[in-house]
């Protein structure tokens, strides 16, 4: 089996799951339904990582996406829920152009990806194990790692500053 174990049926199940849930994010009329669909889409992506022999990425995906990011988004939905009157126009006026652009982009990318000579696919999985990954993070890529933590702190402070409500002083 090339690239470790490629199970066609598992791939078909995961692909259908991810694509259907992704379509749900885009097409559901109610925002909360979109959010739930997004959570399931992220879960399917985690299974995709597991199929690709990357269990660490799958676990981080569940922790960060299915856990943290979904909660933040659902909080934002609950804070901004208006629902006054009809939401009859939930697509904007450029929907047709957007659909054409997305389909054309997908076609071009697919043709390029399939026709490009990416090279032979090896017989075994090349995803590094946990030991190799941790050595990479803390040895070779330690500077980007620290930089990412700096970005996270900056983003947290920025989010607090942006969303903080000024108190009226008596």
């Amino acid at each position, binding site marked *: 089996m090339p*690239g470790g174990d490629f199970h066609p049926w598992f*791939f078909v199940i995961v*692909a259908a799951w*991810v*694509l259907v849930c992704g*379509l749900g*994010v*885009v097409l559901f009329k109610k925002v909360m339904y979109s959010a739930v669909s*997004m959570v399931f*889409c992220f879960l399917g*992506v985690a299974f995709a*990582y597991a199929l*690709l022999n*990357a269990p*660490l*990425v799958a676990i*981080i*995906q569940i922790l*960060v*996406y299915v856990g*943290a*990011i979904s909660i*933040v*988004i659902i909080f*934002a*939905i609950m*804070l901004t829920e*208006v629902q006054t009157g009809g939401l009859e126009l*939930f697509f*904007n006026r*450029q*929907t047709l152009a*957007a*659909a054409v*652009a*997305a389909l054309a*982009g*997908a076609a071009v*990318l697919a043709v390029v*990806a*399939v026709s490009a000579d*990416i*090279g032979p*696919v090896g017989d075994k*999985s*090349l*995803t590094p194990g946990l030991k*190799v*990954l941790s050595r*990479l*993070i803390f040895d070779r890529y330690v500077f980007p790692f620290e930089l*990412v933590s700096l*970005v*996270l702190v*900056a*983003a947290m402070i*920025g*989010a607090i500053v*942006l*969303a903080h409500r000024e108190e009226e002083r008596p």
Partner: protein
Amino acid sequence: MNPLDWWLLLAILLFSIGAFGVLARRNVIVVVMSLEVMLNAVNIALVAIANFRGGARGAGTLFALFVIVLAAAEVTVGLAIVIANYRNRRTVQTDTYDKLKG
């Protein structure tokens, strides 16, 4: 087509779905969610290529981890902007954000 091509096709389709959502939806929170779907699609492609082709000693898998962390930072700041804007304008519809229009 080898397995890598199938994974890349999945990533491309998911990316296009997310791109359509970003371009076409009116609710800005759904736009942010579609953006996250696009980032996930890119991550699938990264992890798939790292699995099937290797190269750079596992940097592809590591890059996917960095993308996940940066997506978390992005979504915090983005939603903070959405909430601050909602507090001022009482709306989350993208086509009402036209204060800067001449």
